[in-house]
């Protein structure tokens, strides 16, 4: 399939209860393609797994919704934590999705017109949405990542070490 460009606005919402960690939901909308549904995404905690698995695995629920999503999340008790704009390219290889994009900071809250890049670098993200337990796909992912060397070093890391 042809690579595509994208320009998305993402808002991250938190729902705080008495539990230690808040519930996080991501609401994303396309800024350059009209008439698309909003995208609501739930991401679970990343699981490192063992050495035999070459990618991080996390639970994921993707939902297409109507455009009143943010109002509805607020009604549910969520509040917006932060927002950003992502702009770049998306490539597909089989069920693998490779995104090369830059993240932009929003200077004035709510105004997605005035933005500035967080860094000059691009972020490269490789992901696959697969049914739970299909760890084999991580082999394909490692093979693909090998091809990108030495331009890009895509490695499995433990995000907890970065925090």
């Amino acid at each position, binding site marked *: 399939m042809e690579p595509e460009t994208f320009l998305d606005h993402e808002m991250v919402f938190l729902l705080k209860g008495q539990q230690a960690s808040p519930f996080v939901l991501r609401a994303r909308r396309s800024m350059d393609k009209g008439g698309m549904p909003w995208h609501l995404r739930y991401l679970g905690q990343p699981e490192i797994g063992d050495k035999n698995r070459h990618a991080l695995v996390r639970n994921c629920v993707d939902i297409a919704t109507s455009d*009143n999503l943010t109002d*509805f999340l607020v*009604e549910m*008790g969520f509040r917006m934590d932060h927002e950003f704009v992502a702009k770049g390219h998306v490539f597909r290889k089989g069920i693998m999705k490779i995104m090369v994009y830059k993240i932009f900071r929003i200077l004035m809250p709510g105004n997605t017109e005035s933005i500035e890049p967080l860094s000059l670098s691009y972020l490269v993200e490789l992901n696959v949405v697969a049914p739970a337990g299909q760890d084999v796909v991580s082999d394909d992912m490692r093979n693909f990542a090998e091809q990108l060397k030495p331009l890009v070093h895509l490695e499995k890391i433990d995000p907890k070490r970065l925090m």
Partner: protein
Amino acid sequence: MGVTCVAQVPVAEGKSVQQTVELLTRKLELLGAEKQGTFCVDCETYHTAASTIGSQGQTGKLMYVMHNSEYPLSCFALFENGPCLIADANFDILMVKLKGFFQNAKANKIESRGTRYQYCDFLVKVGTVTMGPSARGISVEVEYGPCVIANDCWNLLMEFMQSFMGSHAPGVPSVFGTKHDSVYGPADTMVQYMELFNKIRKQQQVPVAGIR
């Protein structure tokens, strides 16, 4: 879709819910309406979990998650007097993830099932409303496909409903009042069902003659 009106029809005196439904459908068939399969609208109630109350300054609001066989891939989430979110079926899975915050009041699950009729450009759905094991009432949904502005065709809808519901034809649904001349959508129908279900739930205690 066109403009839709959802109404409750009281159970006829000395008759059961089932008999009243048969009375209605017979009238429709005499009018010339044709049977076109079945339909189902269901509604689940979620309580805001006690844990979030206080920390967010929220009162114990109820959230409703509904499905409509007319839109089999969609899921409708509503608050009373609040926004109605239209999402795909994965929203149900999200609600499972959210169970620490929103609890499903399983006993409150309510649904309306029945037959779908077509008459000219009208679509009529006569359903039995059930909550748990018992039939609680009768819902009638009338959709007029060609029109998209609720207030434009209200008189016409009314005349049609009177032709088979007689004096039980309803007044203007409250969602019509807020529409002005914006286009009527599936969410507006779901709001009407939510209001109807809430009304029927409250009638729970009142004994109605003939309910089985």
